[in-house]
């Protein structure tokens, strides 16, 4: 295999930076969920890359757990977005402020 560990880690850093950019700039709730997915995927990529190069099977096991937990998180997040959309008729997170005193 000609690809080194550092190449995978650099791709993962790029995905993390793009995710943080989306999370800090966008106000659309669905797009913020996209950004969270990118950050979670960069973490999974790191796990599997280090598991290949150490080598150890526990990294892949942890990546499988992480993928399953991310699926649950997306289901709850989308349900929350649907409830907020029915309440405010909007998905702009600057409008979700009934908790503001």
């Amino acid at each position, binding site marked *: 295999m000609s690809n080194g560990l550092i190449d995978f880690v650099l791709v993962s850093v790029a995905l993390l930076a793009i995710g943080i950019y989306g999370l800090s700039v*966008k106000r659309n709730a669905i797009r913020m969920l996209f950004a969270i997915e990118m950050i979670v995927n960069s973490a999974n990529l790191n796990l599997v890359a280090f598991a290949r190069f150490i080598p150890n099977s526990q990294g892949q096991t942890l990546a499988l757990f992480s993928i399953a937990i991310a699926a649950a998180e997306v289901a709850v997040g989308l349900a929350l977005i649907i409830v907020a959309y029915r309440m405010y008729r909007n998905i702009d997170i600057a409008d979700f402020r009934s908790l503001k005193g």
Partner: protein
Amino acid sequence: MVDSIFLAVSVLTIGSAIAALEIRSLIYGSIALMITLSGIAGFFLLLDAPFVAMFQLSVYVGSIAVLILFTVMLVRRELIFNKIEDHRRRYAGIGLMIIIMLGIGTIIIGSGLKTMETNTQTIDYRKIGEDFLTYYSPALIVMALILTSSVIGALALARREDVTNEQRTD
């Protein structure tokens, strides 16, 4: 040195990640997110982890992307095609992205990861199954309970009848 397949997959992944955040339509954005997640599955295949790659394809591309597409379809039309973002924060966000890329990138390039090479055998997926059923079996049961409770919670949230838009104050 990297090979051409790695370069193609990384360009596809990073490019469609940027497109998922920047394309005006949310529907095309979610399709671009699907391409990003498939690219991550391609990386898993390059890392000799076909079991994780298939899991990624079936969970992310198969279920999560379809769930996101259904949610996008439930939203009003003009919200799908309008970009909602803080214009003042935009350049600060781009600056933050470049700072993170350069900062963590230089740290990683300066670290000892560059010399790390492997010539060992790939991990058999039977080993993963054995791990799941022996050492990690309590964690597997807890994860099943978490998944069930999150699905029940999502259904209970989304099916609430008492939520209307009369709580809006302005």
